[in-house]
Each structure stands twice: as C-alpha cells, then as structure tokens.
C-alpha cells in the first residue's frame, strides 16, 4: 500500500535513509512484532517500534502497573498505577502512532498458548523478567522457526542476543538448562538501575527493525554484554552448540513446556 502524505512526513527521517527508503517503511508498516513483557525492557521496545511504524505490535503481560515500576518502565505513567500493563502500553503506542495496530494479551505466556500466539508474528522480543519465560520463549521460537531477540538485565549489567532458529546460536546453546529456582537474583531482589532496560531494550528494538528490513548485521551468534558502571560494551562470538538439547545434533526438547519448578513467588502471586 502506498504511503500517505502524512506517513511520508512522519517517517521522513527513515525514508531518507538508503537502508530504509519508502519500500523499507512500507515493509515495517506491514510487519508484526510480538513483545512478551510490558516492563522495563518491553517499554522502550514498544515505544520505539510504535514510533518506527511497525504495523502490528502484540504485547503480552498479565501484570498491572505498580508504583515501583515507574523508575524504569517508561511506557507507564503515574496515573496508570493499578491498570493492566497491556492497556497502559496500548494507550501510549496509539498516542504515539495511530498507524499501529495493537493486540493485547492480558495473560501470562505459557506452553499452552505460546505457539498459537507467536505464529501470528514475524519477530518476537523477549522482554520478560524470569527464567521460566525466557526458556519457554527460546524453545517455542526455535521449534516454530521464529526469529527473536533475547534480553536480560540485572543491577548494572545486561546482555542480549538475536536468535535465528536453525542458523544461529540459541539461548540453550549457551545455557542448556535453567538455573535452580532462586539461585540467580531477580531485579526485585537485587535492584536494577532505571536506564539499563532503556539501553538493552533499545538494542532489541534495533534488531527487530533490522531483521524486518533485512538490513545490516544482526546480533546473531554474538552475545552482547553491557556494563553500565564501567560503561563498556563487549560482544562474544558463540558458535552453535552441537550438544544443545534444543537445536543440537540430538535434541531432547521437542515441544514447548513450562519449567514449573522455576516459577518464582512473584509469578505465583499473579
């Protein structure tokens, strides 16, 4: 579909980039991205993808906005406290850009619903805050052949990798099994500097846009690590792991499943 005059103006700074152009912008407008988690990472991802004119943004989160979220979850405002995060996020996305169609999933993603949901999208962003979800998203995306961006943060450090199923290193290639429950602290236990998800989430949004445009080099096969205290980025090349239980030579994981023993107290409260 041709761009309208107003779209040409709105996306003019994209359109003058040779890597985007009018065609690239039309691609973005025809694209569908699912963001799982409307918290610290999900906030910048949703805001930037909305501004960029991603035609359909799905956003999944069962949680409501809490006062303690507002130090970093910049898509939610003080008057949103108590509101479902997906509703709060949808309002901001639509206020930024009425071109975007928003689909809300006011539920926790689990093994029973994830395959159906991710099937509707071109790219998935893992913006979740727990290992049960992170492993489930990785497994489902690999099994469904769905490219996705992984992001993780804690205190002052974050890491992200883009996963192209069957082509590049997956999360389980690096971490074959989840850590035992409570072995690794969460942000609510250990804290997180508010701007950190802004940095990592913005990188995840960049990867989504590059993937959709088919431009540049994706962060695939490389784990990017960021340390805000040292203000250093470092990326480590990581080959696919032939012993990966999911995408290795002899996979033992052949369907999406919930890591029930991993659900934290915080999840169970919901």
């Amino acid at each position, binding site marked *: 579909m041709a761009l309208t005059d107003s779209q040409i103006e709105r996306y003019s700074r994209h359109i003058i980039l040779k890597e985007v152009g009018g065609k690239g912008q039309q691609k973005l407008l025809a694209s569908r991205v699912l963001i799982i988690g409307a918290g610290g990472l999900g906030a910048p991802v949703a805001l930037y993808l909305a501004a960029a004119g991603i035609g359909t943004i799905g956003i999944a989160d069962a949680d409501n906005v809490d006062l303690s*979220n507002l130090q970093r979850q910049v898509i939610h405002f003080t008057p949103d406290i108590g509101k479902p995060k997906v509703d709060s996020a949808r309002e901001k996305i639509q206020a930024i850009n009425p071109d975007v169609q928003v689909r809300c999933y006011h539920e926790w993603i689990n093994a029973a619903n994830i395959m159906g949901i991710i099937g509707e999208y071109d790219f998935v962003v893992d913006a979740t*805050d727990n290992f049960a979800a992170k492993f489930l998203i990785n497994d489902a995306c690999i099994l469904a052949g769905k490219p996705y961006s992984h992001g993780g*943060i804690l205190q002052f450090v974050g890491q992200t990798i883009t996963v192209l199923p069957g082509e590049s290193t997956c999360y389980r290639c690096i971490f074959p099994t989840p*850590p035992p429950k409570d*072995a690794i602290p969460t*942000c609510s236990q250990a804290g997180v500097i508010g701007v950190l998800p802004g940095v990592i989430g913005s990188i995840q949004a960049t990867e989504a846009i590059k993937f959709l445009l088919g431009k540049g080099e994706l962060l695939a096969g490389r784990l990017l690590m960021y340390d805000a205290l040292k203000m250093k980025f470092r990326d*480590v090349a*990581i*080959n696919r792991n032939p012993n990966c239980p999911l995408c290795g030579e002899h996979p033992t994981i052949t369907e999406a499943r919930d890591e029930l023993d991993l659900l934290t107290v915080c999840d169970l409260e919901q």
Partner: protein
Amino acid sequence: MTITVNGKKTDLPENSGRTIDSLLAELDVSQPLYVTVELNGEILERNAFDATLVATGDTIEFLYFMGGGC
C-alpha cells in the same frame, strides 16, 4: 602461561595440570555452579570441566545467567 579471560590477557603460574574446574577456583569466578564456560569459541559441557586442561593461548569466556527484564 598466558590465556585470555573475558577479553583480557591473563598471566597464570605455569601449571600443566590446570583444569577448567581448578581455574574457576583459582580466579575465584563468581557463581561457579551456574557459570557457562566458553573455551576457544565452543561452549564446554559442565561435565567436562574437571577433565579439560587449560593451555597457553586459550580464550575463555565466563557467561552468566541474567534473568531480569522487569
């Protein structure tokens, strides 16, 4: 013996019997039970930590779980 650990050249006393397990202790690597070890570009199986010897020139990365996002 010089190896590269997390991108940094690291000098270690000569020791031909140094395994990945003993390196974890020697460098006081945090979360030794959960750290992923990448040796020269390949992820090393945890059950190989005690049998894999560290050699001069090795490039080793310690990779950590990071579960936050909220």
